C-alpha cells in the first residue's frame, strides 16, 4: 500500500467514526423535567475521529510491515514455524505442565507474604469462575453444545442451598449433593426436548431458560424472596466446628479446636480451600471421564454427529449426560456461592454471568483445562484492576471479548485435539506424523 492509499483509508475510517459518534456522543440529552434538553459535545467527536485515524493508520502500517516480514522469512527459511502456531503447540503441552504449576501455586497462595484478605477473596472469586468454566467446558468444550443459560443451573444450586439450609436446617455437606442433583435434574428436563435439535436452537432455548429462571426468582416471592433475595444464609463450619469468636453452648469453635487465636481470616482461608477442592474435583472428573467411553463419545459427537450415529452412539442420550453433568457442577458452584456470600438475589444470576462463563471457556480455548484457568483469572481480575474506571470496565470487557476473538478465534490456548488417537504420533505404521 502506498502512503496515499493508507492515508485515504485512515481518513475514511475517521469519517465513519465521526458520523457514528455524531448523534450519540456529540449530543448529550439532559433532563429538564419537561422535554429533554440537549448539550453539545462536538470536541469529543473530534477526539474520536483523531483516535480512529491514528489507530487505523498504525494498524495498516503494522499489518503491511508484518506481511513483508513474513514474506522475507518464508523466502529465507521455508520451514519456519508460524509464531501463531507456537501458542497452539503450547496449548497442547499446557495441560501437562502448566496445570501442576498452577495447582501448586493455588495451594500455597494463602500463606505467601502478599496474601491478605483481599487477595484471598479475589482468589476465591477466580476459583468460582474456574469451577464454572470447567463445568461448562464439559458441555461446550467436550460435547460441543452451546449453552447460553448456564447461570440458571448456578442459580438453581444457590437457591436450593439457601432454601434447604435455612428452612430445613441442612448443613453444607448434606445440601451440596442435593443442590447438584436438582441442578442436574433441571438439566435433563430442559435438555431432553431440545437436545434432539440443531445446536443453534439449543443456544436460544438455554438463553430463554436462563431468563425464565430469573423471572421466576424475581416473582416467586414466598420461596425466593423476590428482588430482595434471601439473606442470612448459614455460613459454613469446619466439618461441624463453627468459625466464630464465641461459639454457642456445647460447640467447639475452629480456633479452639486447633488452639489458635481467633481470627476472621480463618473462615476466608477455609472457603478458599473449599472452592479449590471443589474445582479440583471438577477438573479430575473431567480429565477421567474424557477417557471413558461416554467422554470419548462426547468428543466424537462434537466432531461428527452423523458418523457417531452410524457407529451406534445414541446422540440424544450422550448429549444429555454431558448437559446434566455440566449442570450438576454448576449446581455445586451455586451452593458454594450461596454459603460464601450469605446473601443471594436474582441480580447475581443475570445473562451477563452466563456470557462471562461462556467467554471464559471459549477464550481459554475450548476443551483446554489450563486455558480456562488463565481466561478465568484474566476476565475476573480485569474488572478488579480497572475498578477505578468502573464506568468503563464493562466497556473494556466487551471490547476485549471482541478483540481476543478476532486475534485468536481458537482461544488463548487452543486445544481441540481428540484425547484418544488410533495411532499416537510417530507410531503410525509406515512412520511419520499422522
Amino acid at each position, binding site marked *: 500500500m502506498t502512503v496515499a492509499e493508507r492515508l485515504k483509508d485512515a481518513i475514511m475510517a475517521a469519517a465513519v467514526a465521526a458520523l457514528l459518534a455524531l448523534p450519540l456522543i456529540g*449530543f448529550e440529552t439532559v433532563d429538564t423535567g419537561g422535554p429533554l434538553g440537549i448539550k453539545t459535545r462536538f470536541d469529543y467527536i473530534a477526539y474520536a475521529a483523531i483516535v480512529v485515524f491514528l489507530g487505523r493508520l498504525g494498524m495498516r502500517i503494522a499489518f503491511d510491515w508484518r506481511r513483508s516480514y513474513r514474506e522475507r522469512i518464508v523466502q529465507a527459511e521455508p520451514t519456519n514455524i508460524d509464531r501463531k502456531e507456537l501458542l497452539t503447540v503450547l496449548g497442547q503441552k499446557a495441560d501437562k505442565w502448566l496445570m501442576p504449576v498452577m495447582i501448586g501455586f493455588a495451594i500455597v497462595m494463602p500463606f505467601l507474604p502478599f496474601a491478605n484478605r483481599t487477595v484471598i477473596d479475589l482468589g476465591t472469586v477466580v476459583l468460582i469462575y474456574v469451577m464454572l468454566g470447567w463445568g461448562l467446558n464439559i458441555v461446550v468444550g467436550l460435547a460441543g453444545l452451546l449453552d447460553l443459560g448456564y447461570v440458571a443451573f448456578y442459580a438453581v444450586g444457590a437457591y436450593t442451598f439457601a432454601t434447604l439450609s435455612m428452612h430445613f436446617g441442612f448443613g453444607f455437606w448434606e445440601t451440596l449433593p442435593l443442590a447438584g442433583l436438582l441442578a442436574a435434574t433441571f438439566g435433563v428436563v430442559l435438555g431432553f426436548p431440545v437436545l434432539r435439535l440443531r445446536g443453534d436452537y439449543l443456544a436460544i432455548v438455554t438463553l430463554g431458560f436462563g431468563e425464565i429462571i430469573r423471572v421466576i426468582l424475581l416473582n416467586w416471592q414466598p420461596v425466593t424472596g423476590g428482588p430482595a433475595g434471601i439473606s442470612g444464609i448459614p455460613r459454613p463450619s469446619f466439618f461441624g466446628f463453627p468459625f466464630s469468636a464465641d461459639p454457642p453452648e456445647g460447640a467447639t469453635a475452629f480456633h479452639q479446636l486447633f488452639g489458635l487465636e481467633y481470627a476472621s481470616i480463618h473462615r476466608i482461608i477455609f472457603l478458599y480451600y473449599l472452592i479449590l477442592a471443589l474445582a479440583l474435583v471438577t477438573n479430575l472428573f473431567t480429565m477421567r471421564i474424557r477417557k471413558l467411553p461416554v467422554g470419548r463419545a462426547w468428543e466424537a459427537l462434537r466432531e461428527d454427529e452423523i458418523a457417531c450415529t452410524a457407529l451406534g452412539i445414541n446422540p440424544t442420550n450422550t448429549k444429555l449426560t454431558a448437559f446434566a453433568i455440566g449442570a450438576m457442577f454448576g449446581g455445586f458452584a451455586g451452593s458454594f456461592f450461596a454459603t460464601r456470600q450469605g446473601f443471594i438475589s436474582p441480580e447475581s444470576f443475570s445473562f451477563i454471568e452466563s456470557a462471562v462463563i461462556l467467554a471464559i471457556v471459549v477464550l481459554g480455548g475450548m476443551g483446554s483445562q489450563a486455558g480456562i484457568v488463565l481466561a478465568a483469572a484474566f476476565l475476573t481480575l480485569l474488572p478488579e484492576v480497572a475498578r477505578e474506571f468502573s464506568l468503563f470496565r464493562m466497556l473494556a470487557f466487551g471490547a476485549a471479548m471482541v478483540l481476543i476473538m478476532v486475534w485468536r478465534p481458537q482461544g488463548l490456548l487452543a486445544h481441540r485435539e481428540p484425547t484418544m488417537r488410533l495411532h499416537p504420533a510417530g507410531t503410525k505404521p509406515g512412520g511419520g506424523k499422522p
Partner: protein
Amino acid sequence: MIGGALEYFLQQLINGLTLGAVYALIAIGYTMVYGIIGMINFAHGEIYMIGAFIAVITFSILGIVGVTWVPLALLIVLIVSMIITGLYGWTVERIAYRPLRGSFRLAPLISAIGMSIFLQNYVQIAQGAKIKPLQPMIRGGIELIKGETFSVTISYLQLIIMAMTLVLMLGFSYLISATPLGRAQRACEQDRTMASLLGVNADRTISLTFVLGAVLAAVAGVMVSLYYGVVDFYIGFLAGLKAFTAAVLGGIGSLPGAMLGGLLIGLIEAFWSAYFSIEYKDVAVFTILVVVLIFRPTGLLGRPEVEKV
C-alpha cells in the same frame, strides 16, 4: 358483560399486533443474517436500541430547533436514524464478524456477545443510565367500537406502526425476490463459494444484509420510542431475545416466517399479559418457543434442513 369481554379481546388483539409488528421488524435482521452466514447476530438487539436512542435525540433536537410539524419531524427522524443505525450495523459487521468468517462456529457468536456488551455500555456512558422520556407527539385515535364498559380504540400511532411495517415488509419482499441485490443475497445464502465464483461480491452482499437488518431495526426503534415514550440503554436485550425467538418460531432463515413469528410473539405477549399475569409474560413466550421446537423443530415456515455428509 359478554360484549365487554369481546371488546377487551379486540383491544388486546390490536395491542398485540402493534407489538408484533415491532418484533417482526427486528426479527428480519436476525433471520437474514442467520440465513446468509449462519450466525446469531447477538448484537442486533443493541442495534435496535441505538436506533431508538438516535430517534429520541433527533426528536429532542428538532423540538429545540423548532420543527414541530409532526409528519416532517417523523420523516427526518426516520431518515437520520436509518442512516446512522445502518452505519452502525455495517461497522459492527466489519469489526467484529468479518475477520472471523471461516473460523469455527462459536467464534462469531462470542464476538457478537462482546459487541453487545460493548454497545450497551457505550450508550450508557455516552447518554447516561437514566430512562430518557419523549413527549407524546402523535395523540388521539379512532374509536372502533363504543361499548358501555369498554371501548375499542386504535390510536393513530398504532395505525402508523402497522401501516409502516406492512409497507416495509412488502418493499422488502420485493427487494429480496426481484432486485439484483436480493438475487445476490439468495445466491450467497445457498452457496457462498459458488456465488463468489459466479461473480457475486459476497463480502459486499453480507455487509448490505447487515445494513438492511439494521435499517429495519432502526425503524422499529423509532416506532417504539414513540409508542412507549421512554428509552433506556437496556431495552435491546429483551427485545432482541424476543425478536430472535420470533425468528426461530417462524423458521429461521425464512422472511415470511420472521414476520409471522413476530406477530405471534406480540399476540402471545399481549394476551398473556391481559388474561394471565404480566410478570410471567416472558416465561410464556419462551415456553411456547420450546413447545414449537419440540413438535416442529424447523419453526412454522422453515424448510426441513437435510444434513449432508
